[in-house]
């Protein structure tokens, strides 16, 4: 139940952030949707980072993962805006823009997710700092 509440709250925030980006960088229905692209790539990078890093720690509570993952980042990013934009671009005969948008979204999204997973994993699993206090009895 707590997870569902966290997803709902995360959904509010993620949708709000995407709406803010939409309003700050509006685009016509038949133009290259730069804002959606940036939102989706940033969301994929951030989720990869968390899944590869913080999420791997057993101490991370389930509700926090749900609230930020499927909640905030899940609703911040969108697939329906991509597919719907492709349909409108196709109807307008903007095939080159449609193909470019599709390729950049898919390849960019996968690359961002892969980079995020690797960066998160590197940071989470870096060696323990050597300056750990040691009174000598463990040596």
């Amino acid at each position, binding site marked *: 139940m707590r997870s569902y509440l966290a997803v*709902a709250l995360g959904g509010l925030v993620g949708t709000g952030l995407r*709406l803010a980006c939409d309003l700050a960088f509006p685009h016509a229905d038949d133009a290259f949707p730069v804002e959606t692209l940036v939102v*989706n790539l940033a969301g*994929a990078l951030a989720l990869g980072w968390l899944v590869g890093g913080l999420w791997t720690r057993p101490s991370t509570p389930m509700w926090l993962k749900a609230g930020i993952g*499927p909640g905030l980042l899940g609703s911040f990013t969108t697939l*329906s805006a991509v597919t*719907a934009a492709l349909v409108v671009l196709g109807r307008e005969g903007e095939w080159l823009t449609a193909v470019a948008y599709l390729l950049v979204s*898919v390849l960019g*999204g996968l690359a961002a997710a892969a980079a995020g997973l690797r960066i998160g994993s590197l940071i989470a699993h870096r060696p323990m700092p050597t300056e750990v206090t040691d009174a000598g009895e463990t040596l």
Partner: protein
Amino acid sequence: MTGALSPLVVAAVLVAGAVGAVLRYALSRALPVRPGHLPGGILIVNVVGSAVAGALIGLAERAALDGDLRLVLVTGFCGGLTTFSTWSVETIELVDGGRWRAAALNVVMTLVLGIAAAAGGYLLVS
């Protein structure tokens, strides 16, 4: 894009997005992904959300749906229901696990079914 949005419309967009997110989470919990297999729940919400968004944009173009309502349902509900981040991260996790076929299937099915659904929804109301 129309002029200033009323706070009520903004609130409605956010709530619609939260409802979409909760539905997506509920479905992904109801259809847990077996390790190394296609994330079916996310595929379903992405295809359904694409169909609904296509139909609503078609209606909006025919002036059968006003701008505020379009924002609530398309940007809010469909945007919250569908997700790009989970899809891309789960695809890379399949690749990292050596499940190339499942990863390729996740990409191809999401794109082909998602675009077909959006086009289908759009054409249905035209």
